[in-house]
């Protein structure tokens, strides 16, 4: 008992103390929890902000068209280029990105563009066309002639993650000040003064809204809107609002106003385009007006700002009247806030909305080419960086070449056999650049990229390597050498025999080497390959830049090697460049988002075939087009356009190939089926037609190689390959290496008589020995 009071007296302060420590503990707990919660929010907002800020896909541009007097380009060719680059026709052609045409004159205004090697300002031009060329190029204001202008290139795609969110990154410095003024005046007047949230802003917005009788201002700051944009669930609970406010303050503590504003400008949701959401002012400017942001007039800027409040409600395409009213309201606010002069705002209010009529896609889809660009870049960049760093990629795609290649496929395949697939590679020869790529019969479909991935037997496309191996031994072979086209059986060493046949199953006895290639006879090619040695042939293939087996069979001479159309383009590029190999490029340069050059892919070159044998082979490849299996292209090609090339057909018509070139353009076309069934087409009846269409549309210079010093033209007797005189029957001029012209001569007149008496084979023996 006596203890009790004592205990009580002791326990009261203890309880008080305990209560205190409970309180303290509780407070601490709240503080710790609160701090942890804030820290968690901080982490959230930071990772979102950094992520959003940098998650800008790489933008890929086509090659810019270089305009200069004398350029081989028709007026319609220019208009096609302009269309691909998203230019539109407008009276006067005085706004950047517009053109106007009057007869053979076109007036246009380019858009300012930051190239990898510097920025070029917008400029007005008048072009005069005649005879398929740009006759003159002038500045319409001064009348001065202009040497050279780059037309700002088409945007051909973005390297983005699968999420269909698109962006065209803008930098704060390139955003018109009037647009920023309008944005702040309408959305957040106190942006530069508040700390993320703005109680007085909320109050002011309320008053302004009451005064206007409708909602003209929102209460949230830009920072809050940005935070809201990060977490796109739209529920408006109190907790959410609280979180938003805390995060807005955290954002302000961590980043400066410029960062926040720039991120907002690139992040804000402005429109929905099917499955693609349009974020940021840069893309919105492109999407609604087909122009870069810094080229917009103030009424256009005001319209974009107007849409933020309700991207769907104020969509100018769907609800033009509503959008116009809100735009004018924004213009009023701009004038009130001193962002623009009152009379400028008044004039702007009178303007029509001027959004692109129907949703016109200035971007054509180029899935096959974009695939090539990505593979090229992945050698140097990580995928994540390509998808998020806002890199600018300057590619080599020529939109008009691409369109003509696609058109050629469409025209020739039409609605025929649905299973027949196609691939096309087009090169701009001298630069070693890929100008177009078609990966299938539906070029817009981003599926199996046959131009890169369909490795198929190349058939007779290999033969030039066989003949080149022979022509590199000029003491043994020349274009007029007589080859044996009689039945051939080859033992493979395991008791099996192989008897190659010509396409037409005929045997011609003796044929000149040049004709054997031009008409693509198989038997002489196999014999020749046997004679020069399989290793000499595979060695050539390797020098031309492609892999070849260490041990090849005689059938290698007929094209058992499997290559993709792109690899074939690599082989033939060497022929077209007269013995110089140039690694093919699809990208010229890459810059970071701010335009700093990161990497340039240079032109490089290497002589891999000597000029003399190369010239001889190319003569034979020209003969293919004049007299041989490629001759039907002549009906399609422009008059006087000299070309060289080779057809290829594989067993059972599984693959139809053509590879060939003019002086400036190389094309490789493959036709076949994915299931490897027969197509019923030869190289000549299938691929050649598409090739001829595509090359006709683009080639300007014919293929006319300069004859090297060591080569001289010689008159050869067609039947015997011996030398003869020009006046004789059956004489034919062929280039020979000067040190290796044939020794034997034939006499005209006598030859004729002998020819009546016997076959060519006999003659060859008489004169050859």
């Amino acid at each position: 008992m006596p203890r009790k009071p004592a205990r009580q007296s002791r326990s009261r302060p203890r309880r008080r103390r305990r209560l205190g420590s409970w309180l303290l503990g509780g407070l601490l707990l709240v503080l710790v929890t609160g701090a942890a919660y804030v820290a968690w929010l901080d982490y959230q907002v930071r990772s979102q902000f950094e992520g959003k800020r940098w998650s800008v896909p790489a933008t890929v541009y086509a090659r810019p068209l270089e305009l200069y007097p004398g350029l081989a380009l028709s007026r319609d060719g220019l208009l096609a280029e302009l269309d691909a680059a998203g230019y539109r026709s407008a009276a006067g052609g005085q706004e950047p990105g517009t053109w106007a045409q009057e007869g053979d004159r076109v007036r246009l205004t380019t858009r300012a563009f930051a190239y990898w090697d510097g920025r070029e300002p917008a400029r007005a031009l008048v072009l005069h066309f005649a005879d398929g060329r740009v006759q003159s190029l002038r500045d319409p204001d001064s009348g001065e002639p202009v040497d050279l202008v780059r037309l700002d290139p088409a945007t051909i795609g973005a390297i983005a993650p699968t999420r269909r969110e698109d962006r065209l990154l803008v930098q704060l410095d390139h955003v018109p000040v009037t647009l920023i003024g309008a944005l702040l005046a309408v959305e957040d007047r106190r942006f530069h003064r508040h700390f993320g949230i703005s109680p007085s802003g909320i109050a002011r917005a309320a008053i302004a809204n009451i005064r206007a009788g409708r909602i003209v201002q929102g209460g949230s700051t830009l920072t809050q809107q940005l935070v809201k944009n990060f977490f796109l669930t739209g529920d408006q609970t109190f907790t959410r609002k609280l979180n938003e406010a805390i995060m807005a303050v955290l954002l302000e503590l961590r980043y400066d106003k410029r960062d926040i504003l720039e991120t907002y400008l690139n992040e804000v949701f402005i429109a929905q385009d099917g499955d693609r959401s349009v974020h940021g002012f840069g893309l919105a400017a492109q999407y609604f007006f087909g122009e870069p942001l810094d080229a917009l007039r103030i009424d256009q800027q005001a319209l974009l700002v107007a849409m933020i409040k309700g991207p769907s409600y104020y969509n100018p395409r769907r609800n033009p009247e509503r959008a116009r009213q809100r735009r004018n309201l924004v213009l009023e606010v701009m004038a009130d806030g001193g962002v623009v002069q009152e009379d400028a705002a008044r004039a702007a209010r009178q303007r029509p909305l001027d959004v692109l009529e129907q949703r016109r896609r200035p971007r054509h889809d180029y899935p096959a080419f974009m695939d090539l660009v990505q593979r090229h870049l992945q050698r140097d960049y990580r995928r994540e960086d390509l998808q998020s760093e806002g890199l600018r990629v300057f590619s080599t795609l020529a939109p008009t070449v691409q369109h003509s290649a696609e058109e050629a496929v469409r025209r020739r395949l039409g609605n025929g056999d649905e299973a027949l697939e196609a691939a096309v590679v087009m090169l701009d020869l001298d630069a070693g650049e890929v100008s177009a790529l078609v990966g299938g019969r539906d070029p817009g479909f981003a599926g199996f990229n046959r131009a890169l991935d369909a490795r198929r037997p190349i058939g007779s496309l290999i033969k030039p390597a066989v003949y080149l191996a022979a022509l590199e031994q000029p003491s043994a072979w020349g274009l007029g050498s007589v080859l044996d086209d009689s039945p051939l059986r080859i033992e493979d060493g395991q008791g099996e025999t192989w008897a190659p046949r010509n396409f037409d199953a005929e045997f011609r006895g003796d044929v000149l080497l040049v004709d054997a290639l031009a008409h693509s006879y198989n038997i002489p090619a196999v014999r020749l390959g046997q004679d020069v040695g399989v290793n000499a042939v595979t060695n050539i293939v390797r020098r031309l830049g492609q892999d070849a087996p260490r041990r090849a069979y005689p059938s290698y001479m007929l094209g058992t090697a499997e290559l993709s159309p792109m690899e074939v383009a690599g082989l033939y590029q060497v022929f077209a460049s007269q013995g110089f190999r140039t690694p093919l490029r699809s990208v010229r340069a890459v810059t970071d988002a701010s335009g700093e050059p990161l990497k340039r892919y240079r032109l490089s070159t290497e002589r891999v075939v000597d000029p003399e044998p190369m010239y001889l082979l190319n003569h034979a490849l020209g003969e293919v087009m004049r007299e041989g299996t490629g001759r039907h292209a002549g009906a399609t090609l422009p008059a006087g356009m000299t070309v060289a090339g080779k057809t290829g057909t594989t067993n059972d018509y599984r693959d139809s190939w053509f590879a060939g070139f003019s002086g400036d353009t190389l094309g490789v076309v493959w036709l076949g089926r994915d299931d490897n069934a027969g197509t019923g087409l030869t190289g000549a009846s299938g691929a050649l037609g598409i090739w001829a269409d595509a090359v006709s549309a683009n080639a300007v210079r014919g293929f006319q190689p300069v004859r090297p010093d060591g080569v001289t033209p010689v008159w050869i007797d067609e039947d015997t390959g011996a030398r003869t005189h020009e006046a004789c029957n059956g004489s034919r001029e062929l280039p020979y290496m000067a040190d290796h012209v044939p020794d034997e001569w034939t006499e005209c007149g006598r030859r004729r008589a002998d020819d009546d008496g016997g076959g060519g084979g006999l003659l060859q023996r008489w004169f050859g020995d």
Partner: protein
Amino acid sequence: MIRNRLSLHLLVFAAVMVLAGCAVLEEPSEEAEAREAEPREEPAPAPAEEPGAAAVERLMSEARDASDDGDHERAGALLERALRIAPESAVLWHNLAIVRYREGNHDQAEQLAQRSLSHAGGNTELRRRNWEIIAVSRHMRDDDDGAAAARSRADGLQEVGGE
């Protein structure tokens, strides 16, 4: 031996400087004409006749400036741009060879000079200069036999077309 080698290097270096001084990024035919009044092989057609000549001229002069500033990357890019307009211009290939030489890329210097040769036709002076580049590039890659061979090609052209 080592000293010999070193002095040879110095000699080559001096030759290169001379080469660089006179040939770099200039239309050789013009310069050659200025040097001597004697009639000689016709230089390439007058610029005004070629399509894009003014454009090429401008790019070439910008490239010359960039090269003189030591900005080889830009000089090379400008010449590549010009080559897309005039791909058969032996002078452009030659100048690109010099840019590559200047930045120490001797392999490409030789290859580009070879390419220039393939377009040079009867322009003896330009041919000679290409062989000069090939000679010094080979020398820098320690291919002394190759350098000597190229040197004698260059000297041969000197006798035929020069003086």
